[in-house]
């Protein structure tokens, strides 16, 4: 009896000690398909690391950005792992808000990360966030409508070809718009698209001395082309369309072409969700023969804030979620097509993935065609393809986005919008101390 009691006592004590030892880490993330899938698969991680418990906080992208920015700037310590993008990483790393990821493990194979993505997440050669999924943008088009128009989409089209194809594909009577593009105002909405597009027109946000460039002919050409194209061949009310609105239009067969995130490929080719799943072709984002294409580069990445008390457990988790092993885990449970794309070269070399994802090659080519460190034709003092990696960009980008969205809606002229953008940018840069 005594022995029995003693054993029970010891067992309870060790259980208590174990519970006290178990560390819980809080992960802030967005509600994107790949992230939700990761939450379902965490048993694999907790089985291998029974002493680490995972708490998830899922938030809408803009709320998440605000929450994690507040927390990291005040060193609130609410999160141990944060999902952030290529915009935040260089800014936050320079502020010493993030821990460098140098203990990802022997079998992690950092060199396998696609160089363009790794470049966007590193500062001074150190990786500050591990990419969970990466994306560029490309052209998704309806092969049947293209054929009907008597055209053939080249792998690397020009903007002139896009215009010509859009004109021919537009069939208002049957509800088909030649092209669907983002118009909703926001630095991550229409300005992501327009900034990337402007790179291919030879435009840039600032010259080497941080002087805004909206008064230059390249921006005029970009915006005029965009507004004219959308007026002739875009959907009604385009100035309020973002990713989701265009996705819905494309899936219902109302767009001939859609230039947007490569991650959309898995949605538009999904027969359960898309009416046109078997008719979609892919091509690189257009250019104007100036050496830069109109595609962006983004990676939702996992980073560890400098204020965390649980850095080791957090890094173990980051390593697991962005490893080759995780890709294999997803493939074994949900098929290769559902593996988070755009982060590792090995995935694109995998024949099974190539078979399952017909858009794989074009995605990789698009990612490789973007260079965040040299995004424009003329030299610039900033990093970032579809954004300028300075803290002021969120506010300024959204202001300019509103002006351009108004030009698309016909509330102002292209010239007025550019003039106001120039004024707003000059004011913001002067206030920020960039222009002396």
């Amino acid at each position, binding site marked *: 009896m005594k022995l029995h009691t003693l054993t029970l006592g010891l067992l309870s004590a060790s259980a208590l000690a174990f519970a006290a030892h178990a560390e819980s880490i*809080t992960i*802030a993330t*967005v*509600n*994107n*398909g790949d992230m*939700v899938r990761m*939450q379902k698969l965490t048993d694999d991680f907790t089985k291998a690391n029974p002493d680490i418990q995972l*708490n*998830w*906080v*899922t*938030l*809408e*992208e*803009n*709320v998440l950005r*605000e*929450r994690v920015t*507040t927390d990291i700037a*005040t*060193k*609130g*310590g*609410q*999160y141990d792992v944060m999902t952030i993008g290529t915009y935040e990483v260089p800014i936050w790393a320079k502020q010493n808000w993030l821990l460098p990821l140098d203990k990802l493990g022997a079998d992690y194979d950092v060199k396998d990360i696609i160089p363009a993505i790794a470049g966007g997440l590193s500062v001074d050669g150190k990786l500050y966030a591990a990419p969970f999924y990466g994306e560029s943008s490309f052209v998704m088009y309806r092969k049947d409508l293209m054929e009907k128009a008597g055209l053939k989409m080249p792998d690397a089209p020009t903007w002139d070809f896009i215009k010509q194809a859009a004109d021919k594909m537009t069939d208002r009577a049957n509800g088909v718009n030649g092209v669907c593009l983002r118009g909703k105002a926001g630095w991550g909405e229409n300005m992501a698209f327009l900034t990337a597009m402007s790179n291919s027109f030879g435009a840039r946000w600032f010259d080497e001395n941080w002087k805004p460039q909206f008064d230059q002919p390249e921006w005029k050409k970009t915006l005029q082309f965009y507004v004219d194209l959308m007026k002739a061949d875009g959907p009604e009310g385009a100035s309020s369309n*973002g*990713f*989701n609105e265009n*996705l*819905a239009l494309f*899936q*219902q067969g109302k767009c001939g072409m859609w230039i947007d*995130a490569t*991650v*959309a490929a898995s*949605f538009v080719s999904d027969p*359960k*969700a898309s009416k046109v799943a078997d008719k979609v072709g892919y091509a690189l984002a257009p250019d104007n023969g100036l050496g830069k294409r109109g595609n962006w580069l983004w990676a939702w990445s996992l980073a560890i804030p400098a204020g965390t008390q649980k850095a080791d457990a957090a890094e173990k988790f980051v390593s697991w979620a962005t490893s080759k092993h995780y890709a294999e885990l997803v493939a074994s449970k949900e098929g290769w097509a559902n593996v988070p794309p755009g982060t590792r070269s090995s995935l694109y070399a995998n024949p099974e993935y190539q078979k399952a994802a017909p858009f794989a090659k074009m995605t990789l080519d698009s990612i490789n065609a973007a260079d965040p460190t040299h995004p424009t034709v003329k030299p610039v003092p900033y990093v970032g393809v579809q954004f300028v990696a300075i803290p002021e960009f969120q506010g300024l980008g959204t202001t300019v986005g509103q002006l351009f969205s108004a030009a698309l809606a016909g509330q102002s002229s292209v010239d007025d919008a550019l003039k106001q953008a120039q004024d707003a940018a000059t004011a913001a840069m002067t206030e920020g101390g960039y222009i002396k």
Partner: protein
Amino acid sequence: MARAVTTQHKTIATAAAWIVALLIFFPILYTIITSFKSEQEAIQGFNLIPSGTFESYSEVQQQSGYFKFFFNSVLLSVGSTVLALIVAIPAAWSMAFSPTKRTKDILMWMLSTKMMPAVAVLFPIYLIFRDSGLLDSRIGLTVMLMLINLPIVVWMLYTYFREIPGEILEAARMDGASLWNEIIYVLTPMAVPGIASTMLLNIILAWNEAFWTIRLTTTNAAPLTAFISSFSSPQGLFWAKLSAASTLAIAPILIMGWFSQKQLVRGLTFGAVK
């Protein structure tokens, strides 16, 4: 003849009221309808007849357990309302029954705190919460919600209390009632409809408060507003799931509002005839 016109007017007024009510309620109704659709159905344009699937509800429950958030919502809204009433009843009493020449200014000042955009004080509040260890705590958030709604509670109670004749309180005082006895046994029972509607309104306001409840919580204290927010996606169309989450989040407060609508309307129109 006169009677016929009245009936006709009545019919028109009733029809107009129904149309207005339906217009106001329609977005909620459509959310509920969408929650019973599949994701494919949800994006296929306007359609009032869903296929009746419960798929979204089970997925929502699977993805993030509803009851933990629900429990927090109940705790925060009821807790902050009770706290607010404890502070506001004496405050409104003093302003209604022994006003000074500054009472109006104080009332205006209290209301003016509602005029500032919440985001303007995000950082100071966040730092105070961080330093007092209140981030993601139910106590901290209850106090926060109480403070946010306090001006409205004081204003509403002040308006109701002013309808109560001061002579009754005087009579109580003559009979030897202490200050607390006067407030608790004389004033409060007479102002029950007003207090009840203030309470109901405050619970609704606290239940729906989405700025601070999302920004000051992570996992432990997160209420239903955080639950809904987690289903909004910038890349991907999950409207049915989002609608299911929204329906689950508003259902309790909708049901409560339905059962207490008489009380709510009576309280809100209290003194309106004057």
